[in-house]
């Protein structure tokens, strides 16, 4: 860039060169941008076009005529309302529990010396990178009627009959919190580490107690990380499929499960597409709202 303007300043004699250089530079920059072409092509062919296709499909009735039938049915049939309510409830409760468990953990980690914190971080990252299927399976094994929790609970005399811990809403929530917790802890921990300790020293030197200093100085400064983590957890929860399918025992139907059922059991592409479109729109709205709320905080960048 600077070379071009230097030539520009060289006056009339340099004009031909300047134009040539500008052309060369433009060509080079286009060539560089062209390096993204293979990736763009792949995402277009395997993602944008098929999803666009489904989008179109959701506006066609069974005879292929344009209609809003599938959307109308979604509003008319109470079972759809229940599915959406279940999805929101689960996402909301999971997010809430993740905040209640994740905030103290992130705070605990941020107060440790760096070496110790990195060591503890392994416990956060290990499940983060372990297959979701493996972790859901682990909960299935732990929570089943003859599972570890029931066996030990009865051995210790905490309860006498095996409790129904899985194949219901409770089991689904436990599994989802376990999977989502790292998504909460990572951005929170990053934000907390970045908080300047001198601010807390200043608060203390002005006479604030440690607890008061935490609530008036530390907590407000950690809010961007909390918002980023909560938004991420909530949005990811909305699209959950595997955990409710495996731990819900057919009793917990989130939107994703309903979409899969529409395809696998009823071959109803129109209904499934319409549900998919609504799910996508809700996801995007939540993301945009979250980005607005945590302006500048960086929804994804905060954790790393």
């Amino acid at each position, binding site marked *: 860039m600077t070379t071009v303007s230097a030539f520009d300043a060289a006056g009339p004699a340099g004009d031909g060169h300047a134009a040539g250089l500008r052309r060369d530079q433009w060509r080079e*920059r*286009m060539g*560089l*941008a062209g*390096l*993204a072409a293979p*990736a763009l092509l*792949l*995402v*277009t062919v*395997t*993602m944008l*076009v*098929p*999803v666009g*296709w*489904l989008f179109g499909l959701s506006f066609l009735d069974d005879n292929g005529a344009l209609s809003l039938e599938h959307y109308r049915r979604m509003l008319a049939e109470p079972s759809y309302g229940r599915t959406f309510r279940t999805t929101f409830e689960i996402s909301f409760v999971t997010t809430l529990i993740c905040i209640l*468990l994740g905030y*103290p*953990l992130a*705070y*605990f980690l941020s*107060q440790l010396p760096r070496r110790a914190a990195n060591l*503890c971080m392994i*416990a*956060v*990252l*290990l*499940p983060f*990178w*372990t*297959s979701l*299927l*493996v*972790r859901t*399976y*682990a909960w*299935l*094994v*732990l929570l*089943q009627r003859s599972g*570890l929790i029931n066996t030990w609970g009865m051995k210790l005399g905490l309860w006498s009959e095996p409790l129904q811990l899985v194949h219901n809403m409770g089991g689904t929530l436990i599994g989802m919190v*376990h999977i989502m*917790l790292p998504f909460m802890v990572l951005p929170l921990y990053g934000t907390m580490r970045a908080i300047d*300790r001198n601010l807390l*020293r200043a608060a*203390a030197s002005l006479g604030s107690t*440690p*607890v008061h200093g935490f609530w008036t100085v530390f907590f407000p400064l950690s809010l961007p990380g909390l918002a980023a983590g909560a938004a991420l957890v909530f949005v990811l929860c909305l*699209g959950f*499929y595997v955990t409710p*399918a*495996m731990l819900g025992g057919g009793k917990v139907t989130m939107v*994703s499960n309903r*979409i*899969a059922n529409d*395809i696998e059991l009823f071959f109803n592409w129109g209904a499934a597409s319409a549900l*998919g479109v609504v799910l*996508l729109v809700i*996801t995007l709205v939540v993301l945009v709202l979250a980005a607005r709320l945590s302006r500048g905080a960086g929804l994804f960048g905060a954790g790393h």
Partner: protein
Amino acid sequence: MSWLDRPASDTQISHGARLWLYAVGALVLAFLAIPTLIVIPMSFSQSQYLEFPPREWSLRWYEAYFSSSSWMAATATSFKAGFCTALLATPMGTLAAYGLHAARLRFAGLAILALLTPTIVPVILVGIALFYAYVQLKMVNSFLGIVLAHTMLAVPIVMMIVGSALKSFDLDQERVARSLGATRTQAFLQVTAPQIGFALVTSAVLSFLTSFDEVVVALFVSGGDNATLTRMMFLALRDQIDPTIAAISTIMIVITSLLLAVSQLFGKSDP
């Protein structure tokens, strides 16, 4: 003065007053780590009902896994798919991140947004959309189909990792190399690539894991001879709790830990 009375930080709160925080922190860490790890000893149990601690140890579930041709075929498919995904997604994502970073064009932001859509769109929607598209293209249950799908899911991850590595890299170094006679390709391969080597290795590892661990898309577009391991596990778990899966889970945990350890070691040896 005992440890409990000693101040835990500059703001003079004592360790004693913070005991509850240490307890909560340890409990939540245990909640995160233990359920996954407990599957490992359970997989060596003799019993049909996964017990902990196992009363009798045995390798029967590992035998069941390694002697089943369908589990072995699915494992081979998953390894091949993961390998091909890493091989495709790493260069694709790196080229895209590098090109868009170096070109500094106004529409680069739009291109990046388009490339990140796979991380935003709910995966069930990707699954059924691809299924629909592959039906038209007669690519359902094909190996190519699953590799392309997983590559598309992995490209944004590579882009984010390489993109953030490039942010802290000074492109003037490439200009210096080129002013000394290197071509752009040479400059990239000899100057830039070694310095973002850690990001490239991490990208390849995470691309492999993205494919290897992926369930939902594989559920819809893989099958027949090209069913992935996760697809088979998911379908097996829908019916009953098969202890063979504890053995497979243990193997998957070991593979994941090894891969991440390798990528970490690579990062440490990097200057």
